[in-house]
């Protein structure tokens, strides 16, 4: 079962897509988008894991004494988290305005832009 953690990432991504497609509330939809993004954290971190590895921080361990996990994916995940948080903030700001202008957060009732 060495590939099981990867399947978790794939599952999170797909379930986020399902939530987005069937969402009945825009705030919920933005949350589902964050779920999709969480899949990318899980994937990156599992990819970077080393058996028996610890944090790649050498303030209290001697370099070379223990295996450390891949620091690059950790940095990428950190970037990804910040990107995700800011995108979520911006999208929520848009949701606030949509609710103000349309009076509803239900995508089923937002049918103005079509054709």
């Amino acid at each position, binding site marked *: 079962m060495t590939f099981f*953690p990867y399947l978790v990432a794939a599952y999170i991504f797909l379930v986020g897509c399902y939530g987005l497609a*069937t969402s009945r509330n825009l705030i919920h939809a933005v949350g589902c988008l964050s779920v999709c993004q969480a899949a990318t954290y899980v994937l990156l971190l599992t990819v970077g894991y080393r058996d028996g590895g610890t944090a790649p921080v050498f303030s209290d361990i001697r370099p070379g004494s223990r295996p450390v996990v891949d620091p690059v994916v950790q940095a990428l995940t950190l970037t990804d988290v910040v990107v995700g948080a800011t*995108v979520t903030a911006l999208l929520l700001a848009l949701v606030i305005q949509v609710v103000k202008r349309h009076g509803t957060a239900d995508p089923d009732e937002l049918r103005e832009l079509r054709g």
Partner: protein
Amino acid sequence: MTRRARLLVLAVGGAGLTALLIAACLDLPDFGRAAHPYGTRAVSAALARHTANTVAAVNFDQRAFDTLGEMTILFASVLGTVVLLRQSRDEERAAPESARVAAPVRRYALLLLPVAVVTGLYIVAHGQLSPGGGFQGGVVAATAIHLLYLGADYRSLERVRPVGVFELGDALATCSYLVLGLASVLAGTAFLANALLPYGTFNTLASGGSVPLLNAFIGMEVACAVVVLLALFLDQAVEIEEEGNRNG
């Protein structure tokens, strides 16, 4: 499309994508394997520049250009949210009313506030040494002052948090990061090269060359950005009202 048709499209596409992702997972290298070429190089490069926290070395030295982009995304989303949540023509402000706060909540929040702020600053300052750094510490410090909202009321929060100052801080921190990057171009090296400052003694506060400096700019940027973002959203919840809606 009807809900049914949408589910059908989703089911067909989702089935294909699921099959593809499962097949890809089976082809992935074993979980926990030892070979990480980039990671291994990153560790030795970090140690060569006396940075104990390799993640900070990747973020602020080796891949500092990514961090520039990331910081700018945060900066852009603050600017964008300022634009999107501005008070529009048909809205007006209502002064927030203070609400009574239960005494234990008040005591706990006011006690925790200084501790949380100091913790945030500590995490920022030790970014190159221990887990954490500008991003994490900035968020802690910024959310810490919002304990004032929980412990006292909105008006006291507004007093310690002039949004204009924090917007300015956000912009200045972004500029400082860029200026430090440009300084190394003027010095004749590559953009954002960690070559201007001595690398210092391993595992001390002043180690890692420009890493602590960039880390501090990020800490400032994140703290200011989070404060501004929260202020904008709180404003929407507390102060801004539609016209003709001022009855409560």
